[in-house]
């Protein structure tokens, strides 16, 4: 046995010993007599402090001897932090994960399987389907949906009124409305009717899905890229037409600064998340005077009167496989994912809750985004999906289409091959 292996087996032995000692709190139900510290990692900006305090207070009432340590983590390089934390001997008990990351950690044994406990979570029957999908890997449940975000189109009501147009009800209509706006503001060289940065894949996906296309399809354990199917190509070519006629955004840029750009007043529409309304009107980041001039409508379908499916973003709450407080961790997650605090997430936090039963709590603009979430899709649920994202396959494809570097059939079949390779590797 080499020294490294020896070292690791010693560490593993200690870990096992520790697990055995912590067996008390590992029981399927909690008694209220547990002691120790429950460590929770939430991402910066995900839950309002009042909600976290409320969850902790309710938890404390049941488990007076358990200390809950909620540690806020930063987005920058979070996967590096998660990789090392799960590799170490003391990972956090509860961890918030972006929904596209769950499969990667679940498939690699970092997360606890909570399939058999699903029924004990409030509203688990009405969780948003796309979020539940993100928590499910090979038929097993590895996390509890936390909150969701979906995209719709934010528009300037004053510009629409000036151009004499109404929110469109189909993609063709969107083009007509956009062209009228372009004509109305033709004297402004910076004007975009629909501002669409070239790498904005999550805003492009609805067009692909709406025409019946998809990123990849699964048969058995094999994935097959399908972004080059005729339906997918039709969606992309429709989008390309819109972008070339209505957008002056950077065809090779991304969407990170679109809210600040919108606040400058030379843009009529952007595809955006619900929370971006807050950024646009924020006195520090945007322009508060736009508050009364904003409206939203769902991304229209090519079928008049219908809406296109949107990508559902969001976060899930998972429990580390090596956590020594499984039952306590589930209880804490159950509180934050339950009716009481999910309602607060909607009313105070302004996000889409994890269950369809609470979606109606949204009002005003957020309600439009919440409604869009009902017709939502998720990316291929493979542990390798994160690799497709980090290889920028779809972003690069969009850029080469928008900049006419390659034709749509060429760009899509190249991307599709890459996706097939990465997902099956």
């Amino acid at each position, binding site marked *: 046995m080499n020294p*490294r292996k020896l070292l690791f087996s010693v560490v593993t032995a200690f870990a096992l010993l520790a697990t055995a000692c912590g067996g008390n709190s590992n029981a399927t139900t909690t008694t209220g007599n547990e002691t120790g510290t429950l460590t929770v990692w939430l991402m910066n900006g995900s839950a309002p402090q009042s909600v976290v305090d409320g969850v902790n207070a309710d938890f404390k009432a049941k488990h007076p001897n358990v200390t809950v340590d909620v540690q806020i983590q930063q987005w920058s390089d979070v996967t590096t932090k998660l990789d090392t934390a799960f590799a170490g001997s003391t990972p956090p008990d509860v961890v918030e994960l972006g929904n596209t990351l769950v499969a990667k950690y679940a498939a690699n*044994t970092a997360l606890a399987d909570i399939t058999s406990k699903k029924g004990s979570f409030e509203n688990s029957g009405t969780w948003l389907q796309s979020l539940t999908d993100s928590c499910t890997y090979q038929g097993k449940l590895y996390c509890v949906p936390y909150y969701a975000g979906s995209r719709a189109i934010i528009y300037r009501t004053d510009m629409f009124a000036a151009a004499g147009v109404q929110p469109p009800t189909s993609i063709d209509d969107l083009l007509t409305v956009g062209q009228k706006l372009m004509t109305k503001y033709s004297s402004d060289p910076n004007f975009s009717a629909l501002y669409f940065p070239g790498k904005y894949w999550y805003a492009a996906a609805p067009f692909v899905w709406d025409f019946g296309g998809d990123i990849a399809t699964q048969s058995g354990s094999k994935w097959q890229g399908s972004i080059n199917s005729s339906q997918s190509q039709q969606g992309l070519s429709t989008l390309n037409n819109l972008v070339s006629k209505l957008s002056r955004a950077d065809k090779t840029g991304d969407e990170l600064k679109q809210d600040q750009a919108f606040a400058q007043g030379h843009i009529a529409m952007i595809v955006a998340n619900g929370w971006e309304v807050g950024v646009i009107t924020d006195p520090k980041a945007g322009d508060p005077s736009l508050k009364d001039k904003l409206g939203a409508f769902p991304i229209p379908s090519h079928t008049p009167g219908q809406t296109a499916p949107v990508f559902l973003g969001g976060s899930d709450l998972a429990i580390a496989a090596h956590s020594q407080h499984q039952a306590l961790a589930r209880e804490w997650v159950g509180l934050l994912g339950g009716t009481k605090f999910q309602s607060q997430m909607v009313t105070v936090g302004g996000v889409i809750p994890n269950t369809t039963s609470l979606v109606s709590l949204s009002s005003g603009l957020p309600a439009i985004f919440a409604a869009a979430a009902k017709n939502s899709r998720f990316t291929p649920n493979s542990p390798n999906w994160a690799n497709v994202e980090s290889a920028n396959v779809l972003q690069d494809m969009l850029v080469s289409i928008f900049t006419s570097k390659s034709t749509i059939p060429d760009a899509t079949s190249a991307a599709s091959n890459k996706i097939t390779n990465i997902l099956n590797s």
Partner: protein
Amino acid sequence: MGVAGDARARVTAGTNIEAGPSRHVIARTLLPYVLIAPAVVVIAGVLGYPLAMLLWLSTQHYGLRELFQHQGEFVGLANFATILGDSEFRHVVLISVVFTVVNVGVSMLIATGIALLLERLSRPVRILLSSGLVLVWATPVIPAINLWQWMFDYEFGVVNWLLTHLGAGNYIHHNWFENPLQGFTVITVIVVWGAIPFLALMLYAGLTQVPRELVEAAEIDGARPWQVFAMVTVPILRPLFLILFSLSTIWDFQVFNQVWVLLNQRPSKDYFLISVYSFQESFRVSKFGLGAAAAVVMVAILLVVTFVYVRQTVRLTTEEAV
């Protein structure tokens, strides 16, 4: 009065606490070890194991599952065969080498110029400029890169606005990163900007050590300023130049944040430098073995490239030692 005089005067004032001759010899033999011991303990104690593990990782098939279970699979040199056989990786290495040569050259040239200038400035301007350089050096790297990102932004960039209004052409809605050559020029500007303060201040600190009498003697002999620089200054500062050249080479070959942050943590393949490649393989694609192998290749290249430096340094040290 020169340095020597100063020093002699000060030493004569000191008291002698000399011990017997035999203790002196032992002390002379042991002293160098005693002096380096703490540094060796810290460096080896903290980095020894990680460096060994890095080497070990480069011979393993090591993904997330292996990382979480601390159970790799030995694959010998397969990781090295994979990356060295990959034309993409070889291209990355080539780009990194060219990038390093350009960046080291440009930064050393400008920094030497600034250091020489600092010597010739009036006191207030010198303090202003050197404090300014420290301010640049002190600016946290990541926000600094964000700043540059804005300055070269497609829509909001000051650079596009300035170039257009100064009549250099129409740069409104100019994308600096569409063409990698332009993109790397921007990256070079940022790297050089960040490197200059340190290099210039070190060189200036070195210049202050050049004995004034030597320079004056050369001037009296009728040497022109550049001759004084070439004949007097450079030879005296040779060890420092050697250090700064090799350090710059090492740092510029490792450039990471300037690419990673500038391109919003998802650079396209055109912008892969070797450190970006290694990080991407490790933390984005979770192939830690390949990432480690790329890092090892990186060190190997640096060792080869700086071999001359290292040998020179060792030789110089040997000559200098009493």
